[in-house]
């Protein structure tokens, strides 16, 4: 029977209260959101915090709000809320693509976007999504608020730049015209982590060229999850199957997957290639059909 080591528990009543509790209990305290990464680790005694600060009552961190050129998402927004949100899918179909494949419906009822990003597991799907959408993260600490770009959030696997006395409060995705996005993942069965997955976001220019692009890959050992050379190859070009193939070829070359029970290194490189092509094709197709439907 797996039982966590003993700890003390406090339930935060507001964001300030949560920060105060973290300050009071110091380095040995941890925030608990959905608990679907932290509790399994505590049950295995991989994590043994002395204090758990429960932030689940902070309804001020649950919002999904369109605000000018940004979509602002509270750190406590659950996977299920992101999956079912029409405003999210309207601007960022990549989020629904990814959420459909994250864990299973039960886990999605509890797990949060903030917990996913702070867990910093290299196979976390929402990390790639946030890289591709060039998210900005709002972090609150005892000295106020700071905003960091997604590429500065993760310091390495399971390590983030959110300090022990800080809380991630909001994720912001920039809304851009003539843009769309897509995610696709290969998993062995429902609820499994990615064997490999890819996400892309594209902005088309007035002449139909790919004006801007972001390509990310999950679970294949790509630095910062971003396929830089693939992006450079695609940017400024007219979309075509040959172009997607070139981006895929470069992604397969640049990633650094490890063979494991989910697949061999060669298979994962093959997936990096194929999935990169697919997400580019889908994202570009989505921009075009949006443009078409708006006349």
């Amino acid at each position, binding site marked *: 029977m*797996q*039982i966590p080591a003993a*700890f003390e528990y406090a339930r935060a009543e507001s964001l300030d209260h949560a920060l105060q509790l973290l300050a009071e209990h110091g380095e040995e305290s941890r925030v608990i959101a959905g608990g*679907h990464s932290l509790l399994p680790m505590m049950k295995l005694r991989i994590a043994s915090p002395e204090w*758990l600060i429960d932030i689940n009552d902070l309804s001020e961190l649950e919002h999904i709000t369109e605000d000018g050129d940004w979509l602002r998402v509270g750190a406590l927004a659950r996977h299920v809320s992101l999956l079912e949100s029409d405003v999210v899918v309207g601007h960022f179909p990549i989020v629904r693509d990814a959420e459909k494949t994250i864990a299973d*419906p*039960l886990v999605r009822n*509890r797990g949060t976007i903030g917990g996913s990003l702070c867990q910093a597991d290299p196979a976390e799907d929402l990390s790639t999504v946030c890289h591709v959408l060039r998210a900005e993260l709002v972090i609150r600490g005892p000295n106020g608020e700071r905003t960091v770009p997604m590429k500065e959030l993760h310091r390495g696997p399971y390590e983030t730049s959110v300090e022990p006395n800080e809380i991630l409060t909001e994720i912001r995705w920039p809304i851009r015209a003539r843009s769309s996005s897509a995610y696709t993942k290969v998993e062995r069965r429902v609820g499994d982590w990615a064997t490999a997955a890819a996400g892309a976001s594209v902005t088309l220019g007035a002449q139909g060229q790919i004006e801007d692009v972001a390509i990310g890959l999950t679970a294949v050992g790509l630095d910062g999850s971003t396929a830089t050379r693939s992006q450079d190859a695609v940017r400024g070009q007219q979309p075509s199957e040959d172009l997607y193939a070139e981006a895929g070829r470069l992604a397969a070359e640049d990633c650094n997957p490890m063979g494991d029970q989910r697949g061999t290194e060669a298979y994962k490189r093959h997936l990096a290639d194929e999935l990169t092509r697919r997400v580019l094709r889908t994202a570009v197709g989505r921009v075009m059909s949006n443009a078409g439907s708006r006349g």
Partner: protein
Amino acid sequence: MQITMTVNGDSVSREVEARVLLVHFLRDVLGLTGTHWGCDTSNCGLCTVLMDGQPVKSCTVLAVMASGHDIRTVEGLASGGTLDPVQQGFMEEHGLQCGFCTPGMMLTARALLDKNPDPSEEVIREAISGQICRCTGYATIVRSIQWAAAHPAGSSQAETPAADPASTDTAEVSV
């Protein structure tokens, strides 16, 4: 620490250690052993209960986190001596063999039908996709949920009186 929650409509207060998981609180402290417990690693869904109407894995929720919330277990499905249509459906359509996954499956089904009274087969399969059944191959579970959708509470066919466990067994064998 002292926690208070609603379990199957009744308010319960107990003193528990912070590390007690909801599944063990329900089974060992409250004696509600209808909630099963399988993998212990958040994978199998056997321990599913409803928290504020949503299915969750009770092995991955602390009892202290459930304090102040509304919990429903399989013991709370039948009401006033009447089986929930979902329970009736599992009897009618052979939704179980060993019964290990059944409480969790039925609770997920209840939550699904509360949200979507007429789900497609695809939606049903998606809803139960986080729960493992080693016996049925899922086909009869899907049919059981479809039966429940077709016989909502209040409709005449669902008004079968709750039988005691012994005669429930007979009812199943006799179909």
